[in-house]
């Protein structure tokens, strides 16, 4: 079926050849830029090529702090998780993939999660849990390579979720800044 | 050597022509006919007529037989339709065909006898070259050439007129 899109072409466009040359000049421009940008990388002189594509498994992108990878639990300086097992994230999670079993503890925070599991196969990386958490205890990390062939392995237990605070500092600063705007 | 090549080409041509007639599968028939065209082109090359040979392949094998093929595929003839079977055991058709073949052969042999094939003809150095063929075509045989082209033009216009008829 021919759809009439009411496009009227000028005479210059209708002879088609000039437009072809325009297209070819665009693509060959990219070609030569990349071709010449390849040479220093080939000679191991300059690691920064003109192509911004990366050799993925060998080289990895550093994600900006706004990137939402898998959610993790923050471990404080004293070696315990920040989470107080309030259950807010469990409730807010739209995918219903968080399961928490609270317990009492001698520490100042009085409550802690005895078990904390996230079903990564169901998590949609929405970041609601991070947003709702009153203690900034659950944050989105920059890890995204969590695929697996086994569903059971996607069921992350507490010890797999714990990550020390230093590693997450960038994200923690970021959420402070971004959520601070609304004065939570 | 030349005689050997001639017999190879000629034999294959006759064989392919025979296979073309007896094969049930229309595509196989077309392919055999292409083979015949090829062998004919080879025979032309043996006769030093390179131009005719090239044109033979270009026009017959390259264009006309492709059209045949195109039509066969467009209609998707598979060779097992009842219409093909209907020519089986058709006495009248077979008889007429036989008569045609016999007549053609008689005419062929009588012409060959009369022409005195054994003497052979002297050919010039530039025989069969493009230049010579062109010169002869556009001087001695200009009228037949033009008549043929007008005939083809009429055929083309007729085909276009037939095809242009609106169906609805």
């Amino acid at each position, binding site marked *: 079926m*021919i759809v009439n899109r009411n496009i009227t072409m000028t005479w210059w466009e209708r002879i088609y*050849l000039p437009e*072809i040359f325009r*297209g*070819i000049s*665009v*693509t*060959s421009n*990219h*070609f030569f830029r*990349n*071709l010449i940008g*390849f040479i220093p990388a*080939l000679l191991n002189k300059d690691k920064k090529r003109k*192509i*911004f*594509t990366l*050799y993925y498994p060998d080289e990895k992108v550093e994600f900006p702090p706004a990137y939402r990878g898998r959610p993790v639990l923050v471990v404080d300086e004293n070696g315990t998780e920040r989470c107080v097992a309030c259950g807010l994230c469990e409730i807010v999670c739209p995918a219903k993939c968080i399961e928490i079993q609270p317990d009492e503890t001698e520490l100042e925070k009085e409550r802690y999660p005895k078990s904390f599991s996230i079903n990564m196969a169901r998590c949609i990386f929405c970041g609601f849990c991070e947003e709702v958490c009153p203690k900034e205890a659950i944050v989105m990390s920059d890890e995204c390579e969590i695929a697996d062939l086994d569903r059971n392995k996607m069921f992350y237990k507490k010890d797999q979720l714990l990550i020390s605070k230093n590693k997450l500092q960038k994200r923690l600063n970021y959420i402070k800044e971004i959520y601070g705007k609304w004065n939570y | 050597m030349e005689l050997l090549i001639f017999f190879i080409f000629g034999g294959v041509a006759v064989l392919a022509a025979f296979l073309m007639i007896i094969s049930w*599968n229309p*595509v196989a028939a077309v*392919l055999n006919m*292409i083979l015949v065209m090829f062998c004919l082109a080879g025979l032309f090359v043996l006769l030093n007529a*390179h*131009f005719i040979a*090239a*044109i033979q*392949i*270009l026009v017959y*094998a*390259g*264009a006309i037989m*492709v*059209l045949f*093929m*195109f039509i066969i*595929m*467009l209609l*998707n003839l598979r060779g097992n339709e009842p219409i093909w079977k209907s020519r089986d055991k058709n006495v009248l058709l077979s008889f007429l065909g036989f008569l045609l073949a016999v007549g053609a052969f008689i005419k062929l042999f009588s012409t060959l006898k009369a022409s005195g094939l054994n003497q052979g003809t002297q050919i010039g150095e530039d025989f069969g*070259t*493009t230049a010579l063929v062109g010169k002869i075509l556009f001087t001695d045989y200009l009228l037949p050439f033009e008549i043929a082209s007008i005939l083809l033009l009429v055929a083309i216009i007729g085909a276009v007129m037939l095809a242009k008829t609106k169906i609805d």
Partner: protein
Amino acid sequence: MEDFLITTAKVLFIFGLNMGVFAPLLTWVERKQSALMQDRIGANRADILGFSMIGLFHPIADAIKMLAKEDFIPEGANKIMHTLSPIICVVPALLTFAVIPFGGEYVIGGKHIKLVIADLDVGLIFIFAISSLATYGTVIAGWSSNNNWSLLGSLRASAQMISYEVAMGFTLVGVFMVYGSLQLTQIGAAQESFFRWGIFLQPLGFFMFLACAIAENKRAPFDVAEGESEIIAGYFLEYSGLKFGMFYMAEFLEIVTISAMVTTLFFGAWHIPFISSALILSMLSFLNETLANIILMLIHISVFWVKVIFFIWFQMTIRWTLPRFRYDQIMKLGWKILLPLSLANILVTGIVILILQ
């Protein structure tokens, strides 16, 4: 005996260059060039002992893969024709090179050597005749596969190829009117001076010929016969392994053939602009005649292939730049634009030649 040896050497050179260098290398070039044009990196995973050599080992990996794959013949397919059609595709692409000169005429050891396998009087028509046979490969492939997509593909292919063959023939009529010969060696030799190159005498002819040739080769933007997004892969849908590879090989060889033809007809064949062979010979006059001629021959051969490689690059660029035409647009371009334009080109060329005489 000597003649036989020389001819064998020429055949081996062309055959080796095409099958050994161009056919495998172009698969790599195609991937790599498209990658560069799209700001990607392209094939680089195949390596030998950790050296990936910017993906240069991929053709080898491809060859191994194709040899190891199952040679699949679908049920209800015509086995003989199914096997025959890839061969029919490859052979014309190779045969065309028999009449394309890759160098001029040289005196080596008192012998005149022409760098062309068969210096036919009907060179151009031979090329047309042979290349028109390539249609059968695709048509039979589609028909014998017993698959509706294949049949559609080969129907499209045959209709397209018949249409463009007509236009292609007419576009080149202007060229051999200008040079007064069908012989490719003579056409090449006539382009000695820069301003007698075909592109200056037949500019319109060049563009039309390139369009027709790419359409004949069924590559994008004229690849409706394959049309991956519409009819999966068209006529070679049911092929696997080595036969599938042969279709690709035919396509790549045809790219080389088209480039060689464009070079010979429009871009001065083996000549270098503004530097005539007499000039090179006089510069080399301190050597003896045979040696000077050999050097000249090598220069000419490399110039010719450099030009060919440029046009291969150009065709690849076109292929990765333009989107596929719709089927009716292809037919319209062929019959309503290229054919009348090429006829007009012939008319104008004829008038100009008449006036100049």
